[in-house]
């Protein structure tokens, strides 16, 4: 987009009013002005000059000083009085000797003077000078106009106050916020009286309760910028109304809560009834019936996980709030391993911890454990009985690395690009067999990215896979590296002693056993179920029990 006013800068010809009562000298100057590429308006005397100026709005006036009806001094004075919305350069011309009359003309409001007979080159230079100044001026005016238009059309209220907190400028949204009537003198009013906020007491950006002109209290984000004009400090405030956003957020939360409740309530009955049937509490089932009950149990578990995951994703995509806490990395890894232990044992897979780095990290603990549970359970799920999954971590100046490796079959290269997509699984029969939701890696990546990091994956079919995650470490500035490696080569590259384990694609484990023997956290889990759930928090005095989510992702 060209800058506003561009057309007026540079070469735009001027419209020059030439006022002279003597036809010959009027023509002489007119010819010169045309030669220099400008257009000419002619006036035959002082009064005519004022008429033409009013009618034609010239850019520059060349004014003879001695005219019978109204002399140049009077015309200059009158033009200065009449033309107030713009700058109209007035150049007086005269053949009189001495400077006194020029000085007099300038004091009457003329801008410049030119002796007769006119030197053509001097006239050309002067006109070029006015052409440039006027070009710059209209460009500045257009910019200011554009900015005013933008500021006026912004939905947020913008107000400028002086050092005393008095309003000096405001946009339309601010006027609406003030609820000002047409005769209401806002300029000069104290902002604290109008909105109940004192700009001098506000930090740069804050949330404040603003009282609008109608007396409503609105929660707003207030951003303040302080600047100076003629050594006087001013503060410009931008006020963004959060009321509607808050309301939408609340409605969304309520809806999610209702969906969660309405889906889980019938599922609780189904899951419970099937589980009790399978447990044999009402009598032993025939083998075929047991098989069918197990199908129902397995799938109600899967549905339960899908509900959890879909709700989780909805929250993630809406922008989840992370609760960053400082924690020992080793403790987190130990907890993640403890959480997966039952599931791994059930699958005949051993989980080993090697080269655990000591150090503090700043993470959302629940979310971190959720990521680890996803990656670890994937590793276990894609391992065969007797194989080993290894987790290790390492610190570096930039951050920390954690690696998980397994001895699974690795990831099909054709599947690699879709690995982190929603409902991405290598094949549907795999999904049925392993009971995942196809959402685990998608959620993991979303969480990692939300924490300012990323996940990378490397894999070779038959040899293993590597998941690498980069996350902010201590505070948002530092970064730390979490690496879930699935093969020894990668671990070696990363300089980590780790056992070799190939891998596979990703999801979390089918919930442990069938309906009758669903996994539950051990006693150690009761204060914080290690398997991350959307709402899992550290609540030492108030345990949260989630039998079905206990050790999964």
């Amino acid at each position, binding site marked *: 987009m060209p800058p506003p006013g561009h057309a007026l800068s540079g070469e735009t010809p001027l419209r020059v009013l030439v006022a002279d009562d003597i036809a010959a000298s009027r023509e002489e100057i007119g010819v010169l002005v045309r030669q220099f590429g400008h257009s000419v308006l002619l006036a035959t005397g002082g009064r005519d000059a004022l008429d033409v100026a009013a009618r034609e709005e010239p850019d520059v006036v060349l004014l003879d000083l001695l005219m019978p009806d109204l002399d140049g001094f009077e015309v200059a004075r009158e033009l200065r009085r009449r033309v107030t919305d713009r700058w109209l350069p007035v150049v007086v011309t005269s053949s009189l000797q001495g400077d006194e009359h020029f000085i007099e003309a300038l004091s009457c409001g003329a801008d410049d003077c030119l002796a007769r007979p006119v030197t053509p080159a001097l006239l050309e230079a002067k006109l070029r000078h006015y052409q440039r100044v006027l070009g710059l001026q209209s460009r500045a005016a257009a910019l200011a106009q554009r900015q005013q238009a933008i500021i006026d059309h912004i939905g947020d209220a913008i107000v400028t106050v002086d050092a005393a907190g008095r309003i000096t400028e405001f946009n339309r949204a601010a006027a609406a916020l003030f609820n000002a009537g047409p005769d209401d003198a806002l300029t000069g009013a104290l902002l604290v009286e109008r909105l109940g906020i004192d700009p001098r007491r506000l930090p740069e950006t804050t949330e404040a309760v603003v009282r609008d002109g109608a007396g409503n209290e609105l929660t707003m984000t207030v951003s303040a910028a302080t600047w100076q004009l003629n050594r006087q400090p001013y503060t410009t405030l931008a006020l963004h109304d959060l009321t509607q956003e808050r309301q939408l957020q609340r409605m969304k939360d309520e809806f999610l809560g209702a969906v969660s409740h309405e889906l889980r*309530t019938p599922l*609780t009955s189904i899951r419970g009834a099937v589980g009790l049937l399978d447990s044999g509490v009402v009598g032993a089932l025939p083998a075929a019936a047991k098989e069918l009950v197990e199908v129902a149990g397995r799938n109600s578990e899967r549905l339960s996980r899908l509900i959890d995951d879909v709700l989780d994703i909805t929250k993630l995509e809406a922008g989840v709030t992370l609760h960053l806490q400082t924690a020992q990395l080793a403790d987190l890894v130990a907890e993640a391993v403890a959480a997966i232990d039952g599931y791994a044992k059930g699958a005949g897979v051993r989980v080993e911890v090697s080269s655990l780095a000591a150090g503090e990290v700043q993470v959302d603990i629940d979310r971190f454990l959720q990521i680890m549970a996803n990656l670890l359970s994937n590793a276990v799920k894609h391992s065969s009985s007797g194989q080993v999954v290894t987790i290790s971590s390492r610190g570096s100046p930039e951050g920390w690395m954690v690696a998980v490796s397994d001895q699974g079959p690795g990831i099909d290269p054709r599947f690699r690009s879709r690995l982190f997509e929603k409902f991405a699984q290598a094949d549907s029969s795999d999904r049925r067999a392993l009971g995942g939701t196809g959402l685990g890696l998608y959620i993991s990546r979303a969480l990692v990215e939300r924490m300012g990091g990323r996940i990378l994956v490397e894999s070779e079919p038959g040899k293993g896979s590597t998941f690498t995650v980069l996350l902010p470490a201590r505070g948002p500035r530092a970064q730390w590296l979490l690496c879930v490696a699935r093969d020894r080569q990668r671990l070696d590259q990363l300089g980590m002693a780790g056992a070799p384990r190939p891998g596979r694609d990703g999801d979390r484990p089918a919930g442990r056993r069938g309906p009758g023997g669903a996994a539950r956290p051990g006693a150690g889990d009761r204060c914080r179920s290690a398997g991350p759930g959307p*709402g899992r928090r550290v609540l030492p005095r108030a345990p949260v*029990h989630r039998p079905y989510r206990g050790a999964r992702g």
Partner: protein
Amino acid sequence: MDARGWSRCCSHSRMNVSGQPGVELSEVDGLKRVMCVEDDADIRLVLEFSLARLGGYEVCVCASGLEALERAPAFAPELVLLDVMMPGMTGPQTLERLRELPVMQGVPVVFLTAKAMQRDMEDILQHGATGVIVKPFDPVTLPKDILVYWEHGRGR
């Protein structure tokens, strides 16, 4: 409150546990009377099967907070499982009223909730519950799971 009181009011909930594959009674270790408050009839049935038939507890199943308030004095529960979202009196409201009963002093109360939002959990636990069990729960392990809360919250 004598033992006959609760057996009278909750006799329909007692089931024969003999010969059932349930929790070994040695593990139950003292916890006997469990009250469940749940508005969903099917879930009530699951709770009753799980805790009475499988777990061998004396169970008093109530369909509303009001019913729980009426029956708690006679039943004298040692642990209460309380649904959070119920029409009429909600779980937290019920808990507040239950706590006013002399018989409920120091009795652990565990919320049952199908809501898993973090803020929900925190709100729920503000109300002085010993813990939360998230639905869907496992009816097979529930008899054992509640012992954790009983031991944890007993006498507090």
